[in-house]
Structure formats: structure tokens, C-alpha cells
């Protein structure tokens, strides 16, 4: 293929600038001495200080991280098991299940959120009336909702890898004396790991970024970060939002850079091994 010339490189740079300009603005103004979001008035850390003492935002941040972490882990386990089960299904049932799996993916967020809230409110009302409980929308409904829309991503990530598995390896392991679970753990699982980890990452990203589904299912007491930002954006805006964006961005950047470095180091190692092997030949 043609190598990229100046024009195409320039275009790419422009697009990346477009993608990052608002983030850059957010970061810069998180250090602003006044609460203006568009006029620079000097450097100050006051918003970061305010951020850490704002219990509402801290609560929301903690809820977001907790729900995302727990939901993505649950989704990972359930999704991997499901993917294995699905790959063993007959064609017809597999197609049906995969169609259902695709529903949360292709459906609009708001429909998923609205439908889940209908279910939750109905169920809660029924339970409250018959059992006399005082349930309401809250952390558990939020968690259930997140797991529900995370699992399809995991399945989508793991299923292709299952298809790529060499079907004979499992039998070979069994022939060598490994029992079912052991064979699974030591032979299949390592092969699936990249897909599982990928699924976990995607699910976690989706959960953290979610706003609409959380909005409809979290109820009145529990709030995620996105919900808090939405509420704040409709009131007096405080650059605390900028401060939290900057912190989020910084931590994710560090994480991804780290992963990237490890990845290229692993690749280089693999390449070196390959060339060593070929020399030896």
C-alpha cells in the first residue's frame, strides 16, 4: 500500500486535534483561578481542593468505579461461560441466542434504560406490596443494568477466540490425563485469556462511560459520575468538573501508555525470538 504522504498525515493530525481540543480545554481550565470556563485568570489548584471535599462527587466517583469494576468482572465470568456454552450449541439455538445478545448492543441506550426501569419499578412495586419490603431503585438495580449491557461485549470478544481454538488440544490434554476442569484451566483458558481480558476492558470502559442507562436505573439515592456531571451542568457550573476530568484523563492515559509500552516490549521480544529461531534454522 502507498505510504502516507504529507497530506494524509496532516489530515490525521487535524482530526486528532479536533478530538483532543475539548479535553485540552477542560484540563487547562481546571487550573483556572476564577470559575470562568473560557477566560483564563491565572493558575490555581482551588478546584482540586474543592473536588476532594465535595462528598457528592466523591460518592458518585466511588459508585461509578465500584459498579463498573464489579459489573465488568461478573460480566466477564458469565460471558466467558456463556461464550463456551454458545459455541457448543446447535446452529439454530446459537443464532437465536446471538440475536438476543445483540439487542443491548444495537438498541438505543435510552430504550435499554427505559425498558429496564419499567421492569425494575414494576417488580419493586409488586415485591413491596406483596412482601411489605421497602425496596427501591438503587445500587443493585444499577449493578444489574450494568451487567446486562456488559455481557454482550464480553461474549463478542471471547467467542471469536473460541472459534479459533484448535479442537484437538483439549482432547490431547485429556489423553495426557488431565481432567475436565484442569484441562480447561491449563490449556483452554490461557488461549482465551487475550479475548477475556479484552472483553473485560471493553466492558469496564462501557460501564464507566455510561450515562443514559444509569440515569434511568440508579434511582434517587445512588448516583454515578456521569449523572452528577449532568446535574451539575444544568445548575451553576463549577470547574470541579474540569478537575475531575483532568484526573480521569491522567489516570487513563498513564494506564494506556503503560499497557502500550508493555505490548511493544512483548512484540519486540517475540520478534527477536522469531529471528533467533530462523537464524538457528
Amino acid at each position, binding site marked *: 500500500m502507498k505510504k502516507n504522504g504529507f497530506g494524509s498525515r496532516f489530515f490525521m493530525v487535524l482530526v486528532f486535534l479536533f478530538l483532543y481540543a*475539548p479535553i485540552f480545554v477542560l484540563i487547562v481550565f481546571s487550573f483556572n483561578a476564577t470559575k470562568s470556563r473560557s477566560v483564563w485568570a491565572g493558575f490555581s489548584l482551588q478546584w482540586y481542593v474543592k473536588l476532594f471535599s465535595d462528598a457528592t462527587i466523591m460518592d458518585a466517583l466511588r459508585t461509578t468505579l465500584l459498579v463498573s469494576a464489579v459489573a465488568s468482572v461478573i460480566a466477564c465470568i*458469565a460471558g466467558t461461560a456463556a461464550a463456551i456454552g454458545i459455541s457448543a450449541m446447535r446452529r439454530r439455538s446459537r443464532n437465536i441466542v446471538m440475536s438476543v445478545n445483540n439487542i443491548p448492543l*444495537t438498541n438505543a441506550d435510552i430504550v435499554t434504560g427505559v425498558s*429496564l426501569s419499567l421492569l425494575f419499578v414494576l417488580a419493586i412495586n409488586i415485591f413491596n406490596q406483596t412482601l411489605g419490603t421497602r425496596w427501591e431503585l438503587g445500587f443493585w438495580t444499577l449493578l*444489574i443494568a450494568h*451487567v446486562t449491557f456488559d455481557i454482550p461485549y464480553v461474549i463478542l470478544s471471547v467467542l471469536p477466540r473460541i472459534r479459533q481454538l484448535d479442537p484437538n488440544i483439549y482432547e490431547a490434554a485429556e489423553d495426557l490425563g488431565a481432567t475436565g476442569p484442569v484441562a480447561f484451566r491449563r490449556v483452554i483458558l490461557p488461549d482465551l485469556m487475550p479475548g477475556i481480558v479484552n472483553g473485560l476492558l471493553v466492558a469496564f470502559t462501557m460501564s464507566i*462511560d455510561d450515562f443514559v442507562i444509569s440515569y434511568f436505573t440508579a434511582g434517587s439515592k445512588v448516583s454515578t459520575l456521569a449523572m452528577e456531571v449532568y446535574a451539575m451542568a444544568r445548575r451553576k457550573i463549577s470547574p470541579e468538573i474540569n478537575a475531575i476530568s483532568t484526573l480521569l484523563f491522567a489516570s487513563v492515559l498513564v494506564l494506556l501508555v503503560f499497557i502500550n509500552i508493555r505490548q511493544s516490549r512483548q512484540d519486540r521480544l517475540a520478534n527477536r525470538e522469531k529471528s533467533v529461531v530462523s537464524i538457528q534454522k
Partner: protein
Amino acid sequence: MKNRWLAVPYVVWMAVFVVVPLILVVLYAFTSRDGGFTLSNFSTMAEYLVVFGRSFFLALIATLVCILIGYPLAYYLAREGESMRRMATMLIMLPMWMNFLLRTYSWMSILENTGLLNTFFQKIGLFSLINGIFGTDITFFHMINTEGAIVLGMVYNFLPFMVLPIYTVIEKIDYRIIEAAQDLGANFRQVFQKVILPLSLPGVLSGITMVFVPAVSTFAIPRLLGGGMVTMLGDLIEAQFMGSAYNPYLGSAISLVMMLIVLICMAVMNRFGEGEEGAVVL
């Protein structure tokens, strides 16, 4: 190991939390406030045809812009070297890790009448220049609270969802096919038109789904960037459930119709491409 029953917990879960809720939506759509069967929700919706039209139109524009920007980007990216590609993929994904509300909110401060862009334009004397040439009297460009701002917000938020699928598919194109085409005498334009474009179509279709559907149904973006001036489908639905007009029956009816229209659009689109289903393998 390959036990079918491993999938049972998952199937039960999906039945309860995906299928049943959707059935509920359908049921509610046909129910009136007093609990009886009715079609009145649908007749009320006729008044909101404008909103349907506007939402689909704006979503369409946003999707087209995403393709216009995203396809070339994905294509150029796929041609880069290994490490550059990985870094670029990471850079595209990075904004997605930052909550989309935060990024949309940032556009508010950029686009406002007293926002960044306008203040910048004023400082460099753009307005005096324009006023001098055209004899007008403007002190700012009216950018926020317009449909344009909403489209901008949509493109900004959903662009990565267009780029990534296309990039994934193009990157996987076996280079030897391209070489073969070139050996057979095709010039670059022909290679692109006859080989790369058709092969990348599944990615484009995937990208369209991932952009169009959220764009049609979003309500946070019109709320933040539209200033209550532009009502979209998402706004309408949200108002029925959490907003000022409480009517979950009407809300369900609107959601149902929206879902159906989207399904039809997707089905029509899929007939144009026989690619793999919905796999965005990031």
C-alpha cells in the same frame, strides 16, 4: 468442556433483563393511563412527527460527517507502521474513557457567545474585520443552542465508533489481494474502488450502526448543547419518564416506534452488505 449448559445462567439472565423489559415496553405502549388497551398513545405521537423527522435528519447528517471524516482517517491509519498504529488506536480510544458528558460539557464553554472561540475571534479582531467588510454589527457567532452545535456534539462523541470498526476491517485486508490487483494492472484508484472499498464495507456498516442509533436517541447532547431550543426524540422520551410530563405509556409508545424505525433502517442497510454481524472487536 464444551458444555451447552454453561450458557444457561446467561440465557436466563438475558431473558429476564433484556427480553421481558422489551415486552413491557410494547405492553405499556398500548396501555392508557387508566390501564386499558388503547391506541391513543400512537395518535398523540402524530403531533411529534416534527421531532421524529428532526432527530432522524440530524442523526443522518452526523453519521455522514462521521463517515466523511472517519473513513479516510481509518484508511490512513491502516497504512501506518505497527507502533504508530497501536499508538493511534490508543489515542482514538482514550477520549472514550473520559465520560462523554464531560467532553460534551466542554464544548459548551467553547461554543458559547462568551465562550472560548468567540472570545478568541474577538481578540484577533475577526469581528471588526467582518463588520468593516460587510457593514454588519456582530460581536459573536451564534454557535451554541443550535442544531449545528448538536450535530457537532454528536460527531465529536461518536467519531471513534465509526473509525474503529472501519480501521479494524481495513487493517485485516490481506495485503496480497491488493498486490494481486496491482499485478493485474489496476491503478490506485481502481484498487481502492474495486478491492478496498467493498472489503471495508462491513466495517462501514458496523460504524453506521454504532453512530446512527445513539445519534437518533441521544438526549444529553441536545440538552447540553441545544439549550432547550431543539427538542429531539431522546428529550421527548426522557420527559415522559423522568422529566416534567410523566407518562410512561406515551414514552413507551415513542420508544417502540423509534426502535421499529431504526430496525427497518438497519435491515435495509444490511441488505447492501453481507458482512459479519455486529462484531466490533476492538
